[in-house]
């Protein structure tokens, strides 16, 4: 039994810093500005849990904490930005311990490799069910490491079949313009060149919203994310 202290990482800070450094390093047009906005998540997506049971009650004595968990995995990505180049490929290590992934969210450029180390005591069965060619189902015994390369731009959710709550979101971007959201759902992407871009929101293992945006606009964006099932229902009604 390996006793290990949890290392909680502030992913918004990390991603913002990553975005800033990438923006400075790659260089952006002189008209670059910050794209700010708010992602309105449905109630069910504001939980720290991916999967809800019947009840979730406060203890009545000690204030509850509502940070971390699945809430860390919401990210806003800009695609098709004028003159933007993808971040360089790199290798990102994800530790699997305590039936959790650290970090849960990886945002990197095409060709990057995600290295998964099983530091826990249980065997894991990891795969990308939506794109099995990228990462087919494979057992990862305790202490073992598995690598997977992500070449194509897009979002990938690595799941464990035995413990569905274990999920790693891998976002391969074609530009350095992305940001995670804070507790209030706010985000800011610095150094975005003026022009048209495609904004996408990734949360809870899938793209939840997308829209065309004008990055030269100074107004704050408000991106609404539909509740699970509602989007499909609206699409179905539209089709009918």
């Amino acid at each position, binding site marked *: *039994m390996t*006793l*290990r*202290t*949890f290392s909680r990482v502030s992913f918004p800070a990390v991603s913002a810093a990553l975005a800033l450094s990438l923006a400075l390093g790659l260089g952006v047009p002189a008209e670059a500005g910050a794209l700010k906005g708010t992602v309105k998540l449905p109630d069910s997506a504001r939980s*720290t*849990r*991916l*999967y*809800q*049971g*019947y*009840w*979730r*009650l*406060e*203890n009545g*004595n*000690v*204030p*509850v*904490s*509502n940070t*971390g*968990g699945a809430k860390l995995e919401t990210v806003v990505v800009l695609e098709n930005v004028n003159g933007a180049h993808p971040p360089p490929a790199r290798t990102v290590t994800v530790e699997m*311990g*305590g*039936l*959790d*992934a650290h970090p849960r969210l990886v945002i990197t450029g095409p060709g990057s490799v995600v290295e998964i180390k099983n530091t*826990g*005591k249980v065997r894991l069965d990891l795969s990308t069910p939506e794109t099995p060619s990228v990462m087919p189902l494979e057992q990862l015994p305790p202490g073992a490491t598995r690598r997977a390369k992500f070449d194509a731009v897009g979002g990938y959710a690595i799941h464990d*079949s*035995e*413990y*569905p*709550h*274990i999920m790693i979101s891998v976002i391969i971007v074609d530009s350095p313009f992305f940001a995670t959201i804070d507790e209030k759902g706010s985000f800011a992407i610095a150094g975005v060149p003026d022009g048209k871009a495609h904004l996408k929101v990734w949360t809870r293992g899938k793209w939840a919203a997308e829209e065309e945006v004008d990055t030269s606009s100074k107004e704050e964006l408000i991106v609404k994310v539909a509740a699970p*099932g509602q989007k*499909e*229902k609206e699409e179905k009604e539209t089709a009918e």
Partner: protein
Amino acid sequence: MFLSKIWFILIALVSAVAGTFALVAPRPAVQKLAALEGQRLDRAQYAAEQMFKVDAHKWIDRVSKLGRDAILSESLDAASRGSGEYTVIHRTIQDRFRTLIPDLATGGIDVIVALDSKGRVIARVGDNEKEYGDYVGGIEVVADALRGYLSDDVWGVGGKLERVAGAPVLSKGKDRIVGAIYVGAETGPGLVERLKKNLDVDVALLLRGKVIASSRPAGELDALPEIVAQHTADIAELKRTPALPLTVGQDKLLVVAAPFPGQAGEQQAYYALLGMQPAKSDLGALLSNVSSNDLKWGNFPWVPLTAVTFAMIAIGLILQRVEVEAPLGRLRRELQKVAAGDLQKIDDGKYGGKYGGLARDVNAAVERYTHAPGARSEMAGKDLNAILGPSGGSTFDLPPAGSAFSGSTPAPAFAPPVAPAFSPAAPAFPPPPPGGFAPPPLPSFNPPPAPAFAPPSLPQPFSASGLGASISLPPAIKPAPWSEPQQLPTDALDDGAADRQMPDGEATRVVPYDQHEEEDAHFRHVFDDFVDTKRSCGEPTAGLTQAKFLQKLRDNKSTLVAKHGCRTVRFSVYVKDGKAALRATPIRE
């Protein structure tokens, strides 16, 4: 006959409607039963969902109550702070668990786990109770408990389903979270039996495409996961499937499946409730479902059914009697009277429909036979048009006049012997002899010479010395119309001729004769024949009136008489090239 036909048609229609009703009527009932069974399963699913919900709350309450235990709180506080001997704390918590819950199995508990504030397992009781020290803080229910939430979840781990409830353990001062406790409850055959008992339906639990527990025999529901998997869209939208048909051996089942909440829902974990489909509604199924009890007097309307059946039969018989047997009997009696000579013709006005037609035909046949020519001329059988046409005369080759059996000799006032009586076995009215036929002279009766017989003034006394017998009619006897049949005194007839005995002993009667009336009757008969023949040939009869037709015949007759110098003309109907046609036979004398 009309009412009889209507009655039979009515009975056929009623029978068809009754049969249709018998086969169709159960179908809505079966559909309704299926719908009701589906609704019952829906309600059972709702009840099961509520039961799971209450169960989850109950487990949360239990765990929360455990978390308020002072010894557990202090022990976990010490473990979280890292003070105290770790092994001692482990044993202390285990002992405390066993004290608080002496029998886990009775409570349906698989495992109780205590964790410090970092998600490290301090102690377990139940499954793997010797293991501790591992981190499970990533488990959502545990992470929630360490955030301060009391919550539940359902796991699908190791091929088993487990319902889990977690709660934080607060410090003695209830001002901070010092750890968490979670309980795993058995979710397998025990739950299935409990659900079946409470809901009165069969239950199956599914996980990752397999049936892991069922109240039905193992292997029966192997097809169930596939059926449920085909309705994931319904499950995502409605949180359950509609009632789905499932065949298990001879049983037709209905299934409603719903997902478990929590992360097990991501692992295709469902609970399925199974009810029986109603029986089929086809004839075989209906009959096979009939029991002897259903046919008892109290349960089956035997009396009304029998009464209705006999009433229908009685009405049919009455209609048959009124429309068929009675007129047939009357007609027969009249025919017997005609045959007996009591009547000269049938009163066809008393009969309707085909019996009326039959009566008229019989009258016409009697009349024709009575006045039929003895032989037909060579012109017989010629088409009317041929006779009347420019070349018609060339074919007019009548037998020499004066011949005793020249064809156109009109029927004598006293007809040749006819059939002794109307009998179905023997034709009552034999057809007239064919053209050219010369009847052999009767040994005791020679027809009177034609000149001696003047039809219009019939009957006239005449001498028949050449026949070897004298026949004379009393002057008092006057010609009588058909409608006033008059019997001639039999003593006025010669014993050897006029009063010839028929085989049954009845005498032949002298029939009064009226030429015009006879001709009209003949023309009417021809008209009837002509209309019937046209109908039988499928020709239209619209516009063909009796008056016009009779007038035409009279005109034709006059033309023929004038052309050929014959006394009269007899018409008959035949079919030529598929159409009704008239044929004329001149009668010389």
